[in-house]
């Protein structure tokens, strides 16, 4: 398969009152066309920031200070702000966690759908309306024509997330970034949205980068997984491998913290402690303060991400 | 945040030091404090520092420009007005009226508003209904209209002016105090005070009022600014302070007639108002940041 996205040693920092704080510390990723890659991690691990910097829509105090992003063969660090803007919506687009707040409350669904079609594909208003209705139907919205004239507050959360997906896909992007797309939705709607995203990959061959903290979502949808901790990838593998044979102690901790309904567990094995504050990163392996296997080596040395097979890599001395 | 709890806890040296440090950290707050301090000092020391009697007319030295202008002299630093009165002396005495009216009207309005707001918020029911509907009616109509009607009936004087300003601007305080009272009333410490049989009167003054005070002080300070402008406006319109008393607004109305020939007559009193009001606003904004962060924005 052809290469779609390549991220090389990406580093992102934020300007705060106490100086710069780095939240993404050298992330490298690769995605093929039509692939679904999941980035998993707790909040504060830098996974959302990574996705925002791929689209160049970081908040004003954030900046990419090192590393490169390629979309197909194009080096996105070398293009102007305006060229980057043209890629957004058309070549790559994004859906967000909160369908309640991600749509503009004062414009109709139709307006918000047409807007990017008219801009990115130079469509006339009538064409854009037709295409908009098609897109709403594609994402499984009944009564699409009526919904075009509705305002966001008149739709349910699940419907809004479908609308967001319709908007994101309307210009047929090669890459869709989904930042916690189902977190705010209830379980049945979650399933439907994930199924919808899988269908879309089948139909349109869109590459999907899904950001989540939920390994259940990963198992359901992803082809490959990258586990992020404290701004770095600590383990990367195909979904099958990761679930069958997790290596990194952090990954194992995550696995163990999924409650299993049928198991009788004596003790909920989850990871103690919290994601470190980016301003006070621990030395050596960033996971060592929470790691059951940590020893002196982990305190003083920073492990590299090393391949253990063609489809599996880990950042740990001990496994 | 957390500032609220600091400001509301019993004062101690450490807290005072913190407030002081915050004042130093806010340049506008410091400027505001200096301006206000300066204005109050001038008002108090007016008879001592003023070079002339502000009402002293001098037909020979009419409309003398300030000393740096052509024809001006250091005898009258900021020049004289159409009756030959020294503008600097009038500015110095004018500060007395601005500050006197500004503060007493705010104290009057604050007292009325605090009282009615506490009653409406604490007792609720019919008290609340009557008080709040009156507040609504006052809010629907520009204050200045009420003031004009009252002044038309009673005729202008210093006392009327203070009464009118105080009697029409109390609604802001009443509304704020009422809504704060409503929420404080539900706090645990008020409920437990009630449970051990404290009298309503005691609860209101001992438990509720002290907790309303920080927001109240902030709003009152900012309203001093509004009141100073209102006093100047009414005096300018001939409905406030009357000659021979001196007010910046009154000086402006003289200056309006001579603007074509003598720019200084109207310029200085206006500057005095603007700078004083600016100082009060800066001070009020700073107090808001320190005492009551939730009022922000």
């Amino acid at each position, binding site marked *: 398969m052809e290469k779609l996205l390549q991220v090389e040693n990406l580093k992102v920092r934020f300007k705060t009152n106490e100086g710069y704080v780095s939240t993404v510390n050298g992330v490298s990723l690769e995605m093929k066309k039509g692939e679904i890659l999941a980035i998993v991690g707790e909040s504060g691990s830098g996974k959302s920031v990574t996705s*925002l910097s791929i*689209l160049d*829509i970081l908040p*004003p105090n954030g900046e990419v200070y090192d590393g490169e992003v390629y979309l197909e063969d194009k080096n996105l660090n070398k293009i102007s702000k305006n060229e980057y*803007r043209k*890629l*957004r*919506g*058309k070549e790559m*687009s*994004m859906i*967000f966690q909160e369908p309640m*707040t*991600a*749509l*503009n*409350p*004062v*414009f109709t669904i139709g307006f918000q759908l047409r*807007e*990017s079609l008219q*801009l*990115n594909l130079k469509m006339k208003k009538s064409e854009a309306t037709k295409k908009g209705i098609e897109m709403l139907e594609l994402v499984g919205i009944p009564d699409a024509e009526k919904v075009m004239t509705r*305002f966001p507050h*008149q739709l349910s959360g699940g419907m809004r997330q479908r609308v*967001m997906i319709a*908007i*994101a896909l309307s210009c047929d992007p090669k890459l869709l970034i989904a930042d916690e797309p189902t977190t705010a939705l209830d379980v049945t709607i979650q399933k439907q949205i994930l199924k919808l995203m899988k269908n879309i990959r089948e139909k349109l061959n869109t590459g999907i980068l899904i950001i989540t903290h939920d390994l259940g979502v990963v198992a359901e949808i992803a082809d490959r997984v990258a586990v992020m901790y404290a701004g770095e990838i600590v383990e990367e593998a195909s979904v099958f491998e990761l679930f069958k044979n997790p290596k990194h102690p952090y990954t194992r901790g995550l696995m163990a913290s999924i409650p299993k309904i049928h198991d009788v567990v004596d003790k909920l094995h989850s990871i103690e402690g919290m994601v470190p504050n980016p301003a006070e990163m621990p030395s050596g392996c960033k996971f060592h303060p929470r790691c059951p296997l940590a020893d002196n080596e982990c305190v003083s040395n920073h492990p590299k991400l090393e391949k253990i097979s063609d489809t599996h890599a880990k950042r740990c001395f001990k496994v | 945040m957390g500032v609220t709890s600091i400001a509301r806890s019993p004062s101690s040296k450490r807290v005072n030091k913190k407030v002081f440090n915050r004042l130093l950290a806010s340049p506008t707050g410091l400027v505001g404090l200096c301006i206000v301090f300066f204005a109050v000092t001038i008002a108090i020391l007016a008879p001592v520092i003023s070079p002339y009697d502000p009402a002293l007319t001098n037909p020979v030295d009419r409309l003398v420009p300030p000393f740096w202008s052509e024809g001006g002299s250091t005898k009258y630093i900021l020049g004289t007005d159409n009756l030959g009165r020294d503008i600097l002396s009038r500015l110095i005495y004018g500060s007395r009226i601005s500050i006197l009216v500004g503060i007493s009207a705010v104290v009057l309005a604050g007292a009325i508003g605090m009282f009615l707001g506490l009653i409406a918020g604490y007792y609720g029911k019919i008290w609340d209904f009557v008080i709040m*509907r009156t507040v*609504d*009616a006052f809010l*629907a*109509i*520009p204050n*200045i*209209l*009420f003031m*004009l*009607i009252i*002044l*038309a*009936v*009673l005729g202008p004087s210093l006392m009327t002016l203070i009464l009118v300003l105080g009697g029409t601007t109390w609604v802001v305080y009443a509304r704020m105090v009422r809504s704060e009272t409503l929420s404080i009333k539900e706090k645990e410490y008020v409920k437990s005070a009630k449970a051990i049989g404290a009298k309503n009167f005691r609860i209101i003054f001992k438990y509720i009022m002290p907790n309303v005070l920080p927001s109240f002080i902030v709003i009152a300070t900012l309203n001093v*600014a509004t009141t100073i402008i209102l006093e100047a*406006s009414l005096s*300018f*319109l*001939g*409905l406030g302070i009357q000659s021979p008393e001196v007010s910046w607004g009154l000086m*402006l109305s003289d200056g*309006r007639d001579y*603007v*074509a020939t003598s720019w200084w007559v109207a*310029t200085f009193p*206006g500057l005095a*108002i*603007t700078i004083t*009001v*600016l100082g009060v606003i800066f001070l009020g904004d700073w107090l808001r940041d320190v005492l009551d962060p939730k009022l922000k*924005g």
Partner: protein
Amino acid sequence: MKYFFLNVIKTVPVLILITLIVFILVRVTGDPVALMISENATEQEKAELREALGLNDNLIVQYINYMGSIIQGDFGESFRYNTDALTLVLDRLPASIELAIVSMILATIVSVPLGILSAIKRNSLLDLFITGISVVGKAMPNFWLGIMLILVFSVMLSLLPVSGSGTLAHTILPAVALGTGIAAEMTRLIRSSMLEILGQDFIRTARSKGLFEAVVVNVHAFRNALIPVVTIMALQTSTLIGGTLITETVFAWPGVGQLLIQAVNLRDMAVVQAAVFIIAIAVIVSNLLADLIYRLLDPRIKYD
């Protein structure tokens, strides 16, 4: 539309309360005859007037009669102009409305770009500058600003007329004097409202769609920022109208404000009452309009 009528009905008690307050102030706090007749009238004239006005009836009857005549638009005659007070006020109304509207437009033209600019350039020198000017604009009494404008543009530069009305040139200075304070307040409001909106999720969505930054700011953010601005501006109508009274006096602008101030100075109570009543109605109408605009701006209101 239903809301609109509902709001119209809600204003009725306020109007009744105003008449009551005016009635009490005028009839109870002094000798109304002394207020309604020129000071050199004879005792007999006063007695006749007292009888003619029904002042010997009890207060409730007087109030009902008073209300009756107000409903018919009869506020009495101005002793200064010897004409019907209401007609006098209504004749002056267009000039006042013109001044208020032109100032509002001016204030909007100035404050919208300044407010947006200082929000998107937050904490920059430009932001500091704009915020600084708006605080000074708020602190300056508008009548002093008016005098200073006359000093600079009429006296020193001889560009614009000192006072009066009729041409566009006459309108500029009063409108600037009146509009500055409003513009200062609006700039501050737009800035803080824009700052809040620019941090919202849907702004990130708009950016992710590849929209021009100008569209993101001026369409997606500004449309939302306007909602709180309109709400608060509606509450500022009082300030605007209070400002008109004084600005009209400074520039000898022949509006209701100038008439009212003259009438207050002369104690021409018929005119005072008519003017107060008309201004009160103007405030209520502009509040209704603001409410209507607010509903148009925020689709969430209609269906809730």
